[in-house]
């Protein structure tokens, strides 16, 4: 179903006019209200008046996650806090968290956008939607929650964890739509198989997956094991949360909601804008956000854009499934992990070297993380108890700071083999 036919099927010419209008007004507002942008634009001697067409956006500077951190907490808000009715925040992975705010209108738009996502995935008012994203500072659960309510579906705000209970509720409450990460869907499938619950006995019809990449092979596996239709949706916490783009039933790319966001594809090395169809890093500019507008935010996600019409009738551009990142962030169970974080944790632990290797694998559909760390000579010949202590310490810190747990393996000094003189820090063996 198409939630907002008037907009989602808008003629291309109208899309561009609307984007131009909204881009100009957004830049006028950020230039006036956000010191960060004003300073940057002034330094480059450019301003909102430079925008004669949407393509002129390319002259403006890119915004990075680091900029958001430096503006912690409210430095990049375009309105005083009393206009803000909701605050979300990232986990604060490598340092300070990034904080985003929403006005009443922002929340209204956000609900509309996630309603588009859910409707594109087949959700109607007759569905029972089980949301297994974490309710809290993360944007995922709340975003889709409000969209589902707007459609009129029955929402079960399950939050994460407790697979046994999730499965029980899925059976008893007759869940028809699952909102989760793709890896959690596989974990659920595995649990059901283990418990001898036939997916055919469930009411489940569809799954809407986001929060981490969902390659085609993974989608197929989910669809086959849970007997559902699986669609992918995409969000960026710093930009909006979920509700940026989503697949329709044709599953040939994610329709990006261009009336609210302008996508650009850049070469992550040269930072030049690439022509339509070329693969590169996705850069997003918000067009309607009031509290926390974003100008040219580097998502670090690698994708490409396809402007050709889709058989569903939507005219908005389609982005390819995001399958990689332009830097070395690894996404594990939906959590972004930087190798540098791991490094800083290891530096705090006595007796180990900051020489490590992260091994990511998919074990029965779920991400599993193994961390091999070299210990120094002294510790290596120490008591087993001490070694166990050290690995427990690392695991605890990983959980506290990064938010994931890992199988920590302490290895002998100099035992990790560098390839071509450089130690490979991340080995990702997940299916691509």
């Amino acid at each position, binding site marked *: 179903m198409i939630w907002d036919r008037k907009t989602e099927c808008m003629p291309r010419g109208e899309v561009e*006019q609307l984007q131009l209008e909204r881009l*100009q*007004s957004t830049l006028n507002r950020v230039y006036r209200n956000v010191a960060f942008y004003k300073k940057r634009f002034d330094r480059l001697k450019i301003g*909102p008046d430079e*925008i004669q067409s949407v393509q002129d956006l390319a002259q403006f500077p890119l915004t990075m996650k680091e900029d958001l951190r430096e503006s912690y907490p409210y430095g990049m808000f375009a309105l005083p806090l009393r206009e803000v009715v909701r605050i979300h925040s990232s986990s604060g992975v490598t340092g300070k968290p990034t904080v985003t705010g929403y006005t009443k209108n922002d929340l209204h738009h956000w609900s509309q956008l996630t309603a588009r996502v859910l409707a594109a995935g087949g959700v109607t008012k007759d569905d029972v939607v089980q949301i297994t994203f974490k309710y809290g500072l993360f944007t995922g659960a709340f975003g889709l929650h409000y969209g589902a309510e707007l459609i009129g579906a029955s929402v079960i705000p399950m939050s994460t964890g407790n697979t046994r209970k999730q499965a029980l509720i899925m059976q008893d409450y007759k869940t028809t739509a699952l909102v989760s990460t793709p890896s959690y869907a596989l974990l659920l499938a595995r649990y059901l198989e283990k418990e001898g619950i036939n997916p055919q006995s469930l009411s489940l019809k569809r799954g809407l997956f986001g929060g981490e990449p969902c390659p085609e092979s993974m989608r197929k596996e989910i669809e086959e094991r849970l007997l559902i239709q699986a669609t992918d949706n995409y969000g960026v916490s710093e930009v909006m949360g979920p509700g940026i783009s989503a697949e329709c039933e044709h599953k040939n790319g994610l329709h990006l909601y261009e009336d609210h966001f302008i996508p650009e594809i850049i070469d992550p090395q040269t930072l030049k804008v690439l022509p339509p169809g070329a693969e590169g890093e996705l850069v997003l500019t918000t067009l309607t956000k*009031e509290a926390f507008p974003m100008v040219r935010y580097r998502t670090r996600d690698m994708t490409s854009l396809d402007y050709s019409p889709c058989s569903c009738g939507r005219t908005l551009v389609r982005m390819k499934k995001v399958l990689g990142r332009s830097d070395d962030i690894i996404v594990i169970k939906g959590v972004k992990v930087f190798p540098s974080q791991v490094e800083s944790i290891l530096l705090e632990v006595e007796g180990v070297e900051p020489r490590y290797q992260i091994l990511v694998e998919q074990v029965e559909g779920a991400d599993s993380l193994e961390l091999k760390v070299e210990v120094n000579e002294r510790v290596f010949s120490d008591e087993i108890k001490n070694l166990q202590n050290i690995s427990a310490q690392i695991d605890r810190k990983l959980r506290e700071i990064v938010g994931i747990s890992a199988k920590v393996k302490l290895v002998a000094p100099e035992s990790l083999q560098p390839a071509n003189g450089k130690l490979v820090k991340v080995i990702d063996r997940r299916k691509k």
Partner: protein
Amino acid sequence: MLRVESVSSFYGAIQALRNVSLHVSPGEMVALLGANGAGKTTLMKVISGIHPVSKGRLVFVGQNIAGLPAERVLRMGIGQVPEGRQIFAPLSVLDNLILGAYVRFKGEGKKEVSKDLDFIFELFPVLQERQKQRAGTLSGGEQQMVAIGRTMMSRPKLLLLDEPSLGLAPLVVSGILQTIRLLRDRGTTILLVEQNAKAALKVADRGYVLETGRIILEGETEDLLNNKEVQRAYLGKEYREVWE
């Protein structure tokens, strides 16, 4: 129907419009809001060809009309109800209305014009009663009706209304705006300039907020009513607070 693309305009050295873009779709009623001196009237005059465009494009039903003289623009189907009504005070109501049809008179003849006259009188029955009266002797609200009626006599595809509520009592304002809404419901596309944001947003479909020559907001009327910038523009009050 109308598409304004990155338009700038000057009064001598003073830039009144900076890179303004907006659009009005067929059948839509769009409100253009802003405080005094924001550039609303300039934009109206630029669209109707009275004031020159220095940069940008004005596309009306697929044709660039930037630089065309006002009389051509009128014949193409853009009719403006000017700010302050600007009716011909010594002339009768009827003559004022008939004058509005002068672009059509030659081609279509008296019959068509009198048909439209009936339509205007149906819209504003009070004007029929007073058709013989000198327009200058009417009340402010009635004069506004004459001004709107006069422009409608040219059968515009797009009706530009500049501050129809100016200087009118609140009750009269709501009556006038209801009539404008009726025109829209009957198929006239409308761009309405108003300082009275609340009243305008009650009847419009969508709106833009202009501030010192720049558009700072675009949105559905409901969104604009919820927006503090609009409330600020509407109140004409500048507030800026540090929120640390």
